[in-house]
């Protein structure tokens, strides 16, 4: 197995991404669209800043819906950023029109997740791999095209070339298709390769071969790579640096060794803990994040990981929704009579879904605000270690409603830790 080549120290920056945002407008309901009502937007990429040095492999790691694929597509100008810039060697791709982007495509190429879908089913391999050359007018005649295509096919290991050149994508295996996609990507001699989960659709046995091929190509062709994946194991194998993404943001970035040996962000720790341990005798207590990835349309306030974070504390952005989630969590464990009695205290549970540091809970018609306060107190006593209570300043009764005051939430910024950066209040000197 080849070892990773070290990136040249002090190499020039290839790609510079600054505060990149990609928001997708939601279509909303029919009536809403008719009335021109704003249905909101998904913040797929929400303020990402990173840079890629020449010859480096940067991994973008995250769960489904973390925005890693959208970020990758934005790097190629395949989706238009809402704000921010993507500078490739000084040219901002975000501001360019499609026609102006096309010449730059010779320098930045992409490898797709599903190799079967990324190849035109009606085009044979030779035509498909050679098409970039024809589009950019880089070959003079058929013979030159043929030679360069065959070179590329040989380079990615589709040999004997004659056997594969005339095949259609459907006639190849997944690994062979991905080799063809790689051949198409390298035939223009790009400097930057964005690989979007290039091995996740492949069989285990083929994965290692494709990754080795990519390492070979990287070394021989002097490529810089952005490697997008949800698979930490391949990221560890392939990347020099890793950026962990959560809900459209980078929560931690740093050298691969440091991230894996000493993860800083609670989310990174949770991701690493979720990697299955092959040794059954070692039963480690896993702190897997609770709950699911929140809705990207309306992400949690403050740090968007705080509802799932075991280490969350006062400034992480606690709000009404978290109180509702806590109550609903409690109710799943109660029997029906108790559940009905407790739920009947509230006028409207949807009132709890408000942003901001002050939550007013109105009691139902015949109930008192004091009984809600008592319920919350009971919950707190029942589980004083629940991180939510660290963010609650006080619970009081005012104007016939129960009022919960939270500590004002603060959005964590990427701050430096030793080797890399992390967006977490635990590492912010202001809260130490």
């Amino acid at each position, binding site marked *: 197995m080849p070892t990773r080549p070290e990136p040249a120290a002090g190499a020039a920056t290839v790609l510079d991404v600054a505060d990149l945002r990609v928001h997708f407008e939601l279509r909303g309901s029919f009536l809403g669209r008719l009335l021109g009502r704003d249905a909101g937007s998904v913040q797929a990429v929400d303020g990402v800043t990173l840079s890629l040095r020449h010859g480096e492999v940067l991994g973008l790691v995250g769960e489904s819906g973390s925005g890693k694929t959208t970020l990758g597509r934005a790097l190629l100008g395949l989706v238009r950023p809402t704000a921010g810039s993507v500078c490739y060697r000084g040219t901002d791709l975000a501001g360019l029109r*499609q026609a102006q982007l096309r010449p730059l495509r010779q320098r930045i190429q992409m490898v797709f997740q599903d190799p079967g879908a990324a190849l035109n089913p009606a*085009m044979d391999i030779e035509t498909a791999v050679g098409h*970039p050359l024809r589009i950019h007018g880089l070959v003079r005649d058929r013979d030159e095209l043929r030679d360069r295509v065959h070179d590329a096919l040989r380079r990615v290991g589709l040999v004997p070339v004659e056997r594969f050149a005339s095949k*259609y994508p459907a006639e190849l295996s997944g690994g062979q298709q991905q080799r063809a996609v790689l051949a198409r990507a390298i035939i223009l001699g790009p400097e930057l390769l964005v690989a979007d989960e290039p091995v996740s659709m492949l069989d285990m046995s083929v994965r290692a071969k494709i990754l080795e091929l990519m390492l070979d190509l990287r070394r021989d062709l002097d490529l810089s790579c952005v490697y997008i994946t949800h698979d930490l194991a391949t990221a560890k194998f392939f990347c020099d640096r890793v950026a962990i993404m959560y809900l459209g943001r980078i929560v931690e970035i740093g050298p691969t060794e440091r991230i894996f040996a000493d993860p800083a962000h609670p989310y990174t720790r949770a991701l690493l803990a979720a990697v299955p341990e092959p040794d059954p005798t070692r039963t480690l207590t896993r702190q897997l994040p609770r709950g699911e990835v929140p809705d990207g349309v309306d992400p949690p306030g403050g740090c968007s990981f705080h509802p799932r974070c075991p280490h969350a504390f006062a400034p992480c952005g606690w709000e009404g929704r978290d109180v509702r989630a806590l109550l609903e969590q409690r109710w799943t464990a109660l029997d029906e009579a108790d559940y009905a009695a407790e739920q009947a205290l509230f006028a409207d549970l949807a009132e709890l879904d408000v942003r901001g540091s002050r939550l007013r809970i109105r009691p139902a018609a015949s109930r008192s605000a004091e009984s809600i306060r008592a319920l919350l107190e009971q919950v707190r006593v029942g589980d004083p270690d629940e991180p939510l209570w660290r963010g609650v300043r006080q619970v009081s009764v005012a104007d016939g409603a129960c009022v919960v005051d939270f500590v004002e939430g603060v959005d964590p910024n990427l701050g430096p830790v030793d080797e890399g950066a992390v967006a977490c209040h635990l590492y912010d000197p202001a809260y130490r």
Partner: protein
Amino acid sequence: MVWAPIRSSRGLPRWLLGAGCTITLLFVVLAVFAPLIAPYDFDTFSADGQRFAQQAPPSAEHWFGTTVQALDVFSRVVFGARTALEVVVLSVAVSLLVGVPLGLVSGYFGRWLDRLLVLITDTVFSFPPLLLAIVLSFLLSGLLGGGVAPAALAITVVYVPQYFRVVRNTTFSAKEASYVEAARAIGAGPLTVITRYLFSNVVQSVPVIATLNAADAILTLAGLGFLGYGIQPTEAAEWGYDIQRAIADAGAGIWWTGLFPGLAIVLLVTGLTLVGEGLNETLNPTLRRRRLLPVTLPTRDTDAGGSR
């Protein structure tokens, strides 16, 4: 690629295709070699200086009898095939040339262009096809003069929306495919994406509609002729017109003037429909059942090194 499913078809679809192609080919032969096959021209009412008998029953001399105008019915049926196929080929070709590119462009670019085109074609859809064809045929024959072209173009306008709709909808879903994004990623412009990546994946359903529309076009043409808005009787033989002239004969027990053109229409429409249905059965992936084909293993090849 395209022929493989047709070649590998078996059972009912193959039978449908075979029967349809045979009938259609028969009419194509009739149309192409009409002057050789038909004993007389379509407007000949005399030979060797002698007028034909009017409304003569089928005989050795006039196989299908003669009409009230003393025209040979057999010759008119044969030349009618020529007219029908000319109109069908012209109308299908023009509808394809207009409908498919419009559908591709509309589906790929979307936005206001798509809305506009959909609105226009939906408007065309909402007219009864025959009525639209009559109006257009009327207008076009004023512009273009007589002949096959106005009738063919009138029919074209009726069918363009169908191709447009089918191609637009398939383009709409095909453009989300990964290979279209991949094409953009390698630097392909919209024209390249449409012609090299979308076209071949979108036109699969077009042959089916084209053959079914061809059958429909025969009926529309006959309808136009029957109502007297089609091709003028002095210009070409036309089955619809012949049937219209035969209405009066039917009451008098003269069956041959109406039967043979009518049979020709039924046969050709059936033939084209069979081709269409057969193609649909073989090409449409939702209907197609893949068959297990017998596999012959090659003899052991000792010098083949590549095992990848």
